Every structure is written in structure tokens, then in C-alpha cells.
């Protein structure tokens, strides 16, 4: 009895299916002007106020200034969605940005099947596929610079909120290699300035739990940290809040996060995802786009690094800012080699 009942359900679903397919055939095929169609697929979700949002901002800018048609597809870390969204983006776009190292497999699988679509893989490197260009960021280089900055600032007790102890901190979202890349650079930067500076590293285990972020931050502030580098997505909101509450400083990540807590954010370590997206689209329109190229955006390419904005100069002594610029030059010239953790 039950089987027959369910059979009927099956038939109904089949009917729905037929109706739906009919709809495909009579879907509107009108198309106006051939605007460049660009889609960005992100592995996580928008609203992280850093990495993905930066990319979205770049895309928006391109839409406004370059007149392209854009769309963003979020996978929200559902690995089964990576393939679906990559495929959907590949099907009817000219240019597809794939943001998130998690999606490499899917990209490698799909890109060759759509030779007419150009793919840009961001935050990792894929080589050997004609229509896939890679953009990688050397977070470690940028982190090195802010690490050095923090090590210098933590000894400057004349800055309000800076204590005696030579301790700085880093709160990471998850204990994963991408985050390690930040950690390694940050630690090396601090060490090179003053081997006596201690870096307290703690992971919250989630990119989505600001309460845990706050708690983790309070724990390292209790240990004496007065400058905290936050690398934790939405969890970072809680980190910033803890710093604000305790009157210590925080280093923002990926985007310029100064507006979140003016006076508390001492600097932001930029990862110019938006900029690189914008520039890539521009190149694509200009015809200077290189198919299959691999770009590494480090300090040299201005892809990562501190903002040097005026807002922060109000807190940081000029000599530290100068020193940061000097370090950047040394990284560019190769005098300083920053370790990697990826």
C-alpha cells in the first residue's frame, strides 16, 4: 500500500519535471547589448568584511566603472555546491573568478570543458590549463610588515594602551595552512625586529563565532598582549570588540577595517583581492589579459601590505611608519626573504 502511495508521489514529481523542462524550451532568449558577463564564485559567504567582501567590492567597482554585468555565487562552504556553482558560472559567462582555495579540483575539472570561458583562480595557483589564470597572494609578506610594526610598537609605551610587556598576539579563525601563512610572516617580522618579543597565537576554531573570538582575544590580552592581529573572518568582529573594550590595538585583515573601530584598529593588513579583480577585468576589456598566466601578488605588486592610511598615522609614530616602508623595500629587493607556510 505504502509503495503505491509513494509511486503516485513519484509520478507527480515526474509531471513537475516535465513541466519544468518544457519551461526550458520556451525560456526567453532575448539579449540586448553584449555586455561582458563576469561571475565570481566564492567558496564561503559574503559578509566576512575581509577577503570575500574585498573581492565583491572590486567586482562592484568594475560593474559601475567598466559597465560589465556581474553576479556573485556563494557556496557557503558547502563542498557539494562548489561544483554546481562553478559549472553554473562557466556555462554562460565570459570571465569567471573562482575565489577560495577549496575549489581548485572543481575548476580543474570544469575549465577545460568550457574553452570559451576565461577563469581566474584567486588565492592559489593552478598551472597548465590554458583558460585558467591564477592570482596568489603572499600574505606572509604583508604579515611580515605588520609583524615588524607590532614588534616596534609594543615597546613604545608612550602610545596610550601599550604596556611594558613585549607581547603581541594573533587570533586565527581556524588552524589551517592559509592562516599559518599569516602566522609565519607575522612571527618572523616580529622576531627580526626584536627576538625578545613574544607572539601569542590562538585559534578560535571557527570563522563564525565572534563570542569565541572575543574570549580568545581576552585570554591573550590577559597574558599581556597589547597589539592583536586578527585573521578570523566573522569571528574577527569579536576580536576587534575585545581589543576596543580592553583599550589595546588590533590589526585588521584583508580589507581596511579601520572603520569598524576607529582608534582601536592600528593598521590593516590588506589583501587587495578587489583591486586585482578590478584590474583583471580591465585588462580583459583592454585585451591585455594573459591567458593561463600566474600572478603572485606580494608586497612588490602592492597586492598585500599595510594601508599606510592617514587614520593610522594618528596612532603610529612616524618613525615606525618609515621603518615599515623601509622593510617593504627590502622585501621587494629580496634582501628580506619571508618564510612560507602554504
Amino acid at each position, binding site marked *: 500500500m505504502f509503495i503505491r502511495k509513494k509511486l503516485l508521489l513519484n509520478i507527480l514529481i515526474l509531471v513537475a519535471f516535465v513541466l519544468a523542462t518544457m519551461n526550458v524550451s520556451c525560456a526567453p532568449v532575448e539579449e540586448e547589448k553584449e555586455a561582458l558577463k563576469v561571475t565570481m564564485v566564492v567558496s564561503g559567504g559574503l559578509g*566576512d*568584511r575581509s577577503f570575500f567582501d574585498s573581492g565583491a567590492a572590486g567586482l562592484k567597482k568594475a560593474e559601475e566603472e567598466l559597465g560589465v554585468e556581474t553576479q556573485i555565487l556563494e557556496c557557503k562552504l558547502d563542498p557539494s555546491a562548489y561544483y554546481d556553482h562553478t559549472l553554473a558560472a562557466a556555462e554562460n559567462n565570459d570571465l569567471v573568478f573562482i575565489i577560495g582555495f577549496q575549489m581548485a579540483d572543481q575548476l580543474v575539472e570544469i575549465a577545460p570543458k568550457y574553452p570559451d570561458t576565461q577563469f581566474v583562480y584567486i588565492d592559489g595557483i593552478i598551472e597548465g590549463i590554458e583558460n585558467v589564470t591564477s592570482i596568489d597572494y603572499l600574505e606572509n609578506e604583508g604579515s611580515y610588515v605588520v609583524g615588524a610594526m607590532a614588534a616596534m610598537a609594543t615597546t613604545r609605551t608612550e602610545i596610550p594602551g601599550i604596556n611594558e610587556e613585549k607581547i603581541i598576539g594573533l587570533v586565527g579563525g581556524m588552524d589551517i595552512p592559509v592562516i599559518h601563512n599569516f602566522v609565519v610572516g607575522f612571527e618572523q617580522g616580529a622576531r627580526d625586529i626584536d627576538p625578545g618579543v613574544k607572539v601569542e597565537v590562538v585559534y578560535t576554531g571557527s570563522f563564525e563565532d565572534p*563570542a569565541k573570538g572575543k*574570549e580568545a582575544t581576552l585570554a591573550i590580552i*590577559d597574558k599581556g598582549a597589547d597589539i592583536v592581529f586578527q585573521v578570523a573572518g*566573522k569571528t574577527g*568582529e569579536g576580536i576587534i*570588540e575585545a581589543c576596543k573594550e580592553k583599550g589595546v590595538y588590533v590589526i585588521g585583515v584583508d580589507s581596511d577595517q579601520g572603520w569598524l573601530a576607529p582608534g582601536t584598529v592600528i593598521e590593516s593588513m590588506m589583501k587587495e583581492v578587489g583591486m586585482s579583480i578590478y584590474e583583471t577585468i580591465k585588462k580583459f576589456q583592454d585585451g591585455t589579459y594573459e591567458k593561463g598566466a600566474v600572478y603572485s601578488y606580494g608586497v612588490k605588486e602592492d597586492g598585500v601590505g599595510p594601508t599606510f592610511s592617514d587614520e593610522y598615522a594618528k596612532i603610529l609614530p612616524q618613525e615606525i611608519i618609515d621603518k615599515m616602508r623601509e622593510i617593504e623595500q627590502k622585501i621587494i629587493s629580496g634582501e628580506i626573504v619571508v618564510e612560507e607556510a602554504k
Partner: protein
Amino acid sequence: MFRELFTPQLLRATIRMTTPIILAALGGLLTYKAGIFNIAMEGMILVGAFSAVVGGYFLGNCWLGVIVAILAVLLISAIYGFFVVKLKSNEFIIGIAINIFANGITVYLLRAIFGVKGAFSSPEIPGLPDVSFPLLDKIGILNTILNNHSIFIYLSWLFVLLIYILIYKTPLGIRIRAAGEHPKALETAGVSVSKIRYITIILNGILCGFAGAHLSLGYLTLFTEGMSDGRGWIAVATVIFGEGNPIMTFAIASLFGFTDGLAFLLQGLGIPDRFARIVPHFTVIFALFIVARRAVLKIARKKREVIRKET
């Protein structure tokens, strides 16, 4: 190593991390006592957290925010109550449905109301005040541990006490317990079991509203998507492990809070983050295993004694 770990700051952190859990758990405990296995706390905290921010932001007053949070959670509770009490649907399924619903609706409304994704923070969100007790200042270590917390932390302790009194010392309390243990006995004593269950669902709604408001206005002053991050589930676990006793529930919630805080400090000793975070879960399971095992052994021992005496 011991000194490095067990600092007053750790106890302070324990108190902070326990509060959202215990607030929700107290609510869940009431419904549990009235015979409803409620697992919708996760969703209710989330709705509470979100609407507290909405209320606080637009009305400009943190207490109005709390009230809005309570009203919103009560709305969800009304749906929950209708399905569970009136239609007598499976409370487990309804609970999960409510959790999914809360997750979807908060994200959706976050975008609809504030036009942002992921998180909303603003200096315009009024935070709940911290409370300081002047007398505590004098006692150094107690001051570090107990003083200057957000107001709901103290209120949560008060609630533990109040709910203990409510359950064990008031007429409503014995009705609630009767509704859970032998509903027909209560019904035939002329008291509507449905009414009692609705009351506990309402109280649960209020407490989850508090938990949410505390999370987004007290603990933090912002909202992020999914910010309850499993606290409702932990609350479910504490209710069941605490067997519906507020004091036991508080103790177990504190154990969670403690091990959670400990996890951050363990990382400082070079223990990988993930192993540090396994600690709370296994500690609680293990602690309860010890308790359960002792109970089983006690029965076995008693049996042996009786047998020895009689044979």
C-alpha cells in the same frame, strides 16, 4: 604549568562563556520538566540575538532591544508551542525545523533590514551595561573573577536561583513537574497540561530571548550570522545531563564554560587548537560517564551486599 593555566582570568572567562548557555538551558529545563524535549534553543538564541540588535539599534535603548528580543522569540515560541502542544507533533522534528527557520530568517532579514551580509556592527547599537560592585573591589582575586561583568551574567545567577525556587517551591512548579512526570494526574486534578506546557514554552522563550540579547548586546555588541554557534545544542546537553535540576545544570554548563576557556590556554602550551577544543566535549562525556558508572557500580555493590548478607 598549572599556574599558567588556572588563573583567575580563566575563572572569569568561565563565567562569561557559561552565561549564554545557562540562560538558554534554564529555559530548556523548564520545558523538559513539563515533558517537552525541546531542542529549539539554538534557533531561539539566534532570533533573540538578531532582534535584540534590531530593537536596540532602532529604538536606541538596550533594554528596549531586550524587550524586542523577547517578543521575537515569543513569536517563534508560539509557532513551536502550536505545533508541539496543540498539534502534538514530534518535538524533535519541530525543534530542528525551528532551528533551520531561525538560521534562514535571520540571514534574510539581516540583509533586508540592514542591507548587509554576514555581520552587522555599529556604534549605534547600545550595549548592555556592566555592573560593578564597589565592595568587591577590596578583595583582589574575587574582584578579578566576579566584578564588572555584563549585567546578564549576574541576572543569570539570579535566574538559576529563581528557577530552582519556581520548580521546587511554588504551586506552578509542582504543576510543571507533574506535567512532565504524570500529565494525566495533573489533567485530572483539574489543571490543563497544555496550559502548563504553554507557560513553560513562554518562559523558555523569555530566557532564550535573554540569552540571545546577552550574546549580541551584552557579551558582544554586534550580530553575525549563526552567532549562536552551537550554544543551544550545548544547552540541550546540559539540561539532559543535569536531569532537569537547575543547580546541576548550572554546574554542567559551568564545566562547559570552563573547559571552553581552558581550550584557549591549552593552545598556549602548544597543544594543537583542535585537540584543545575536543577537551570540553570529552571532559563532559567522561565526567558523566564517571557519574553513571558510579551509579551502576553502586547498584552492583548494593546487590552484592544484599546477596552476601542473605546467603
